[in-house]
């Protein structure tokens, strides 16, 4: 191999190895970046008027007077939208059969009227004939779908409005019907009234998502349907849905080639403006109106929702925060650490101070390593088989998943972590400390308690914190031993609880509702990751201080 090749290989290798570390950092950023970015929007976001109303109703926190004022202001703009929809709905929903019936009735009343007014002879016959022909013309026109034909027919009928025979008679109502019908037809295309109604229903549904139920609507039993878009991003998504109709169309991948029937085609989303569906109708300006006044109707305001971390949640996390989850995680974690610390520290102390290198100690060490290697889901199985099915009934308690079982399971899981960390901490105490104490005549036990342990305590504490972070993030062992996805806040350690870890799982693979609130999905997992990273940060700082102190001596 030539010198140049060797040199090149050397450089290339350095570059490659450097790349591996860059890849690691990029991976970390890729994993954490989007999660934290999206998760932070659970706490810091533009909350709308609906959000403030929800907070007032569910959590009893709001400035009532200013909120009422805001609601009134917003109501003005909303009323305009609703009025427009109502009037359009009335216009579209022409009931041709009813009009037909009404025309018949009008004619009958009119002929009765003629009799009552003692109109007789030729005048009677003429008036009746004219009325009948007008009625027939009206009824025939009702069957037509042609806009122009209807308009000319109605104009035709309306030329007789001033006829002497119909002055001050009930037949005038036929004319008013004709006029109304003419105006309606001018506004909308009757051929499309069905389509209009369908589209209108969609528009109304989107508006309900955006603005919530209309004033006067009954209170919906589902809390999440009682409010409109509580967040500005949700409102904008609604607005987008209102403005555009998305259609999935088959389009060829790459440049189109009409000759080739086997060309791979893919479904592509194409947007059409919804406004065009209502072109020329009185509803068309509604879209512009909504777009122009959406801020006035929803009044978005930058909201720092710190109560996210203490709030109860509603409708599978559609509203509210992660309070019970945080509480459950803390309780399980702290309990399991309380169980494991005595065992971990004593085992570590024994292994460092008392044990030599005999077969007994070797077996213990092997068991610690084995325990560290057992898959976490097997700990879950063990928790079910031992703590729930065996230990709890043996102690006379209910054999069901509970906080106690979960924390005991996690305590077993974290035992090796705890032992190793404490062992390292105790081992790193300088020999001179111990020798000094022994030289002063203290016993081995006393030396350990008063010299070694205090010196090792920060190191042990680091281990405790790392165990805490490990336990807080574990999901598989608590799946069947104490975590639930829904339920009330536990009253004792014999109840199951919600936890952040299980909640994150549940939100990620969960139902349709969870998919509607991505900020809450990400919020949950970011709360968990944040909690764990904070614990790790504390551990790192603590370790750095211990390192400095021990080095200083």
């Amino acid at each position, binding site marked *: 191999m030539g010198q140049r090749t060797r040199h090149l290989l050397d450089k290339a290798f350095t570059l490659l190895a450097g790349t591996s570390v860059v890849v690691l950092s990029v991976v970390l950023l890729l994993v954490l970046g989007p999660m934290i970015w999206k998760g932070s929007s659970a706490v810091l976001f533009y909350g709308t008027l609906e959000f403030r109303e929800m907070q007032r109703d569910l959590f009893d926190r709001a400035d009532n007077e200013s909120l009422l004022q805001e609601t009134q202001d917003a109501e003005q703009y909303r009323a305009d939208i609703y009025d427009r929809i109502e009037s359009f709905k009335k216009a579209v929903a022409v009931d041709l059969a009813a009009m037909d019936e009404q025309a018949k009735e009008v004619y009958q009343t009119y002929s009765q009227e003629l009799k009552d007014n003692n109109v007789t002879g030729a005048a009677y016959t003429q008036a009746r004939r004219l009325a009948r022909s007008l009625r027939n013309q009206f009824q025939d026109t009702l069957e037509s779908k042609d806009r122009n034909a209807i308009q000319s027919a109605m104009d035709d009928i309306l030329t007789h409005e001033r006829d002497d025979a119909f002055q001050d008679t009930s037949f005038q109502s036929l004319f008013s019907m004709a006029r109304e019908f003419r105006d309606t037809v001018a506004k909308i295309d009757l051929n499309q009234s069905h389509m209009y109604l369908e589209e209108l229903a969609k528009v109304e549904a989107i508006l309900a998502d955006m603005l919530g139920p209309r004033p006067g609507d009954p209170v919906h039993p589902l809390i999440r349907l009682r409010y409109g878009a509580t967040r500005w991003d949700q409102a904008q998504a609604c607005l987008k849905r209102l403005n555009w109709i998305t259609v999935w169309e088959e389009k060829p991948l790459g440049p189109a080639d009409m000759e080739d029937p086997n060309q791979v085609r893919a479904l592509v989303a194409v947007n059409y403006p919804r406004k065009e569906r209502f072109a020329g109708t009185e509803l068309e300006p509604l879209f512009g109106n909504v777009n122009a006044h959406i801020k006035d109707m929803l009044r978005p305001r930058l909201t720092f929702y710190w109560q996210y971390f203490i709030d109860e949640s509603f409708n599978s996390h559609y509203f509210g925060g992660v309070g019970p989850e945080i509480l459950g995680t803390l309780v399980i974690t702290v309990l399991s650490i309380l169980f494991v610390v005595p065992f971990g520290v004593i085992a570590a102390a024994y292994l460092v101070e008392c044990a030599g290198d005999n077969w007994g100690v070797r077996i213990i060490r092997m068991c610690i390593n084995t325990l560290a290697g057992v*898959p976490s889901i097997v700990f879950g199985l063990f928790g079910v088989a031992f703590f729930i099915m065996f230990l709890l009934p043996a102690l006379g308690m209910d054999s069901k998943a509970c906080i106690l079982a979960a924390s005991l399971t996690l305590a077993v899981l974290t035992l090796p972590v705890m032992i190793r960390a404490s062992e390292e901490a105790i081992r790193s105490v300088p020999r001179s400390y111990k020798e000094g104490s022994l030289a002063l005549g203290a016993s081995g036990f006393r030396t350990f308690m008063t010299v070694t342990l205090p010196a090792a305590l920060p190191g042990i504490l680091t281990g405790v914190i790392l165990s805490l972070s490990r336990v807080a993030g574990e999901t598989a062992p608590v799946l069947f031993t104490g975590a639930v996805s829904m339920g009330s806040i536990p009253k004792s350690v014999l109840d199951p609880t919600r936890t952040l870890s299980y909640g994150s799982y549940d939100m990620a693979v969960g139902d349709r509702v969870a998919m509607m609130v991505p900020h809450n999905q990400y919020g949950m997992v970011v709360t968990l990751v944040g909690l764990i990273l904070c614990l790790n940060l504390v551990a790192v700082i603590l370790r750095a201080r211990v390192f400095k102190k021990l080095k200083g001596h």
Partner: protein
Amino acid sequence: MDNSTVNLRVKSGAVQYRPLALTPGQDLTGYVLSKLGKAILFLMTCSSVFAVLLIFFFVIRESLIFFRDQGLWASVSTNAWYPKSEDPRYGMLALLAGSVYVTLAALAFSVPLGVMAAVFLSDLVSFKVRAVVKPVIEILAAIPSVAYGFFAVMVMAPWMQDHWHFSTGTNALNAAIILSIMALPTIISVAEDSVSSLGRELREASYALGATRFETLFKVVIPAAHSGIIAAIILGMMRAIGETMVVWMASGNASQIPSPWWDLSQSVRTMTATIAGEMGETEHGSIHYGALFAVGVYLLVITLGLNLISEFFLARAKKALGKA
């Protein structure tokens, strides 16, 4: 503490100092107490031994229902896993294959990357760069598995579907990529330990012979540290094979052996995911319940085996170091 050889006794007028070494003759209660204390300490130290024994005992005990009914080998020789059908089948071959599949795929990503990073950290960079990179690895290790699973489902899966046009975003490749990220910290830290503990002499001898850094690392350092690196790989493997949440969420959970076998874009189902997914819906004491514990037993046996192998290699690495 070996105090028996110390025979100093400080004598002074009024104060009676206690003897440094306890003998039953001088202080019977103290002697008994100290022995008793040591016994209690020993028992508490043995807690991990008890834990391991209890785990094996109870997991095996619950699985006996299944093994009595189905035998030991019948279940791992077929791959039809239909515990819920009218004629339930409990063939675990596909589950085992799924576990092995994602684990090996994960190692294919993480071993080159991890060994490279370990060598890079121990041999190629200054202390300052290490101080920056180490926390990155620690954070990667600290992120809980459910968060990785969340990432796999919410970010990776849609991305794969959009950009690679896979039929499903939750597939073996997705699970393998995430698992490799999770195995990396383990591999890097153990491998780096073994590479950096080799000492300067080997490297300096190689440099003195005119080898470049690349040659030194590849022909001297890595071969010399191979035991530690193998141990690192096995520990990473254990992390991957025992991982539950990520594979449950990301692998698609279709109980099948992909065909063709190299097609990573298909869904697979692992042993851990099966336990996690079905445990909640079984009845205590049923065959299905026992079958899930049986899967747990196989998992235990696999990890125990891997653990023993890794200990063997770690011991060998230590011994080799002692000789050097």
